[in-house]
């Protein structure tokens, strides 16, 4: 069956798969959000250790999802991979640096003779959770505002600014997208800790923190939404493949099919519901509503950027260099082969869910940490 699918259908399927992986990454950013709470929410070393050990049992899932997001884009949309990573060099390098320093921090922070001191590793975690996510958000923002690059006949990218992608942070829309993701990650992080930790003084502070972060996220979310739905977007003529600017493009995309609109508003409502449950109802399960909501909002963002004849990685410098899911994808054969491979994803998700349930069936307590000989 998969072998008979049209090229364009496969391109759509792979944009959906990439969007799902990207959106799951945004949910799993609760790890990064939790890391930014380290210096403000816990009181004392034990509470800090509790937070780090709670997040430390999940950090690799987020990290791996980022790697898979990169791998999926490389396999399915290699022109995007080549253009964005080779062009916006500094923004991606800085993002990667923040993940490199994160990867050692959990393991090394509490170990004796760790050379840099526990505080440095905690700072690494904070940098990953704040600057890392901020830059990822600004990079996602460029899916709508465009980047300054051109491609030649051989698809070699020339970036038009010496800042190599960092210039995206000068655009308030991109910056708002980044700041929204940072605060949303903090909301998710706080809600996850409430769910995973049994230590009332700490979880009470997490609930308060979730609310404050949620309030901080609102102006940036509002700015992003208002601008997204009113901005001129990068449309593609489906016949000729020509890219042109169209007023209200993303508003049109929102109503072109029901999915993005339902995902966007449904997702936002779920996040709000999750925050309400956590902050005002004393419940521990807000993370699930917030998490699903975040995934849905992420899907809406990626669908608005990529579907309905839209350039998902537009060039503001040379319109016709803009990338669409059709001109940036792998060949028909590769997408077909990779679609067979993707049939394994539900199996992977199933064992992750099973193990998650096994490991999280009891909340983490300070007493448990005192008994553990393997600690972060």
């Amino acid at each position, binding site marked *: 069956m998969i072998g008979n699918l049209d090229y364009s259908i496969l391109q759509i399927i792979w944009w959906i798969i990439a969007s799902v992986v990207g959106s799951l990454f945004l949910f799993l950013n609760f790890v990064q959000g939790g890391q930014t709470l380290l210096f403000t929410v816990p009181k004392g070393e034990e509470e800090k250790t509790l937070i780090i050990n709670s997040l430390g*049992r*999940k950090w*690799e*899932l987020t*990290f*791996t999802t*980022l790697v*898979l997001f*990169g*791998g*999926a884009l*490389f*396999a399915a949309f*290699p022109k995007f*991979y*080549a253009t*964005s*990573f*080779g*062009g916006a*060099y*500094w923004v*991606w*390098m800085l993002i*990667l*640096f923040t993940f*490199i320093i*994160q*990867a*050692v921090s959990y*393991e*090394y922070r509490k*170990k*004796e*003779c*760790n*050379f*840099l001191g526990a505080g440095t590793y905690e700072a690494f975690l904070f940098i990953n959770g704040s600057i890392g996510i901020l830059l990822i958000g600004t990079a996602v923002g460029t899916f709508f505002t465009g980047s300054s690059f051109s491609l030649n*006949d*051989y698809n*070699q990218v*020339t970036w038009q600014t010496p800042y190599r992608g960092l210039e995206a942070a000068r655009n308030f829309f991109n910056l708002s997208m980044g700041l929204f993701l940072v605060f949303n990650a903090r909301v998710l992080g706080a809600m996850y800790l409430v769910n995973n930790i049994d230590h009332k003084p700490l979880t009470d502070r997490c609930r308060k923190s979730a609310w404050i972060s949620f309030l901080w996220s609102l102006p940036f979310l509002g700015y992003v939404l208002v601008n997204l739905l009113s901005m001129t977007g990068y449309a593609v003529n489906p016949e000729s493949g020509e890219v042109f600017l169209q007023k209200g493009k993303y508003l049109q995309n929102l109503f072109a099919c029901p999915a993005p609109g339902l995902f966007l508003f449904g997702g936002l409502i779920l996040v709000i519901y999750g925050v309400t449950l956590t902050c005002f109802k004393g419940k521990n399960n807000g993370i699930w509503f917030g998490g699903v909501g975040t995934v849905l909002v992420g899907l809406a963002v990626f669908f608005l950027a990529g579907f309905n004849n839209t350039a998902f990685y537009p060039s503001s410098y040379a319109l016709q260099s803009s990338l669409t899911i059709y001109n940036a994808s*792998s*060949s028909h*054969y*590769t997408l077909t*082969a*990779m679609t067979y*491979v*993707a049939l394994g994803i539900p199996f*992977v998700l199933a064992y*992750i869910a099973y*193990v998650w349930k*096994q*490991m999280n*069936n*009891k909340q983490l307590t300070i007493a448990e940490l005192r008994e*553990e*000989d*393997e600690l972060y």
Partner: protein
Amino acid sequence: MVEQIDLTQVNWARAQFALTAMYHWIFVPLTLGLSFLLAFFESIYVRTGNEEWKRLTKFWMTLFGINFAIGVATGIILEFEFGTNWSNYSWMVGDIFGAPLAIEGIFAFFLEATFFAVMFFGWNKVSKGFHLFSTWMVAVGSSLSAMWILVANAWMQFPTGMAFNPDTVRFEMQNILEVILSPVAISKFCHTTSSGFLLASLFVVGVSSWFLLKGKHQLMAKRSIIVASVFGLLSSAYVGFTGDEAAYTVAQKQPMKLAVMEGLFQGETNAPLVVAGLINSAKEPADTQKPFFAEIKIPGLLSLLANREFGSFVPGVDDLVYGNKEHNIVGASERMERGKIAIHQLKTYKEAGKNGDTATAEAALIAFHEYKDDMGYGYLNNPAEAVPPIGLTFYAFHIMVILGSIFPLVFLLFLFFSFKGELLYQQWLLYLGILSVPLGYIAQQTGWIVAEVGRQPWAIQGLLPVTVANSNLTTGTVQTTFFIFLGLFTLLIIAEISIMVKQIKIGPEEE
């Protein structure tokens, strides 16, 4: 045309990739092998119920975790570096090369990441059986991860299962099974993973030897030594067997690499194997200088190993650069001429297509197809550029082989004296066990140097030189990230070694 980039920038990009890959490769082999050793140790614990084996497992697991973390940290950059520093490569071969990386993410990394948490923190949360299963899954995931990245790397050494599409100006996959099951991929996977098993066995033997010398944790050390020596001995034998197979595939698919590995300039029938030698670094292809100042050779052995046939012809650097009509070898010089025609015809095809000149485009396309197999050579400026650095490849290869020949003896000696119950009295052997650990790391690094330096000047063997594969960046930009990586990774490795040494000194938890 596809622009060639400033050589200085390319060299910095190569240096950066080499730096990050070599740092990463310090940690990966230990992860590959130690994960299986943990699975063995824990299996014995579950089978016997003896808590001593659990303590032993947990001790090695702590060291595994310290190593694993920095392996992950240094690994993420490699995947993305293909895009950041080799963007033209990413476009031109992403259709093929991206697939194994994505499959690695889906099927290997998640296996490792998911069960890693159970392995470390699940002792009191899941059943004994499920914990053991998780430890095995981490081991299987690590090797699966190695498999997919090595499939990708093998494809760079021996591109297969694809065709060049002049319309998209890229190579496109035609047969994924050919990519996955290529002989180079299989031999590379077997050789590389088993070398990781060997290194981890050396590591366990080395650390345990230190405990015995210090008179600490003797029971744990002796048990660790027996399991690791058996695993190491079997792995060493397999490394030797797969090394022979890997060299054979190199001879068949990358004859230039084999020629420089052996310092063979003039091809010979009944070619000798150079066991050791002092390379004449001033030697150039086709000049009259001797390739070695001094060497020890075994007559005829290279022909046998390279072609599985005594007296067969093994091409040398000169034959591969300038051709050898007698043996039907087309040299790089002739392939360069053909490649330049291919490049010209591709350019004509693209321009005619843009101008709507169908007749010219069709003619150019026909001509292009005739010469396209040599297109990569068209980007070389001099046929001698097709020769990888000889000294580095030669010495790295020989150091790897010599060290690889010593390790089985080390394991045999440890097993012999263990079973005789005299290990504690053989201090020289315990010191040798400790010394073998750095030697194992040197063998690992030299192995990678052979594989990657021996592939130069190609990013994709014979198809895409590194000068065409990289990103359009300034030299200063790449220099900056090079030094950032150098500084950051050096800091992290100091931290890693410092923590590792401390944890070894602390030893296993008390009963």
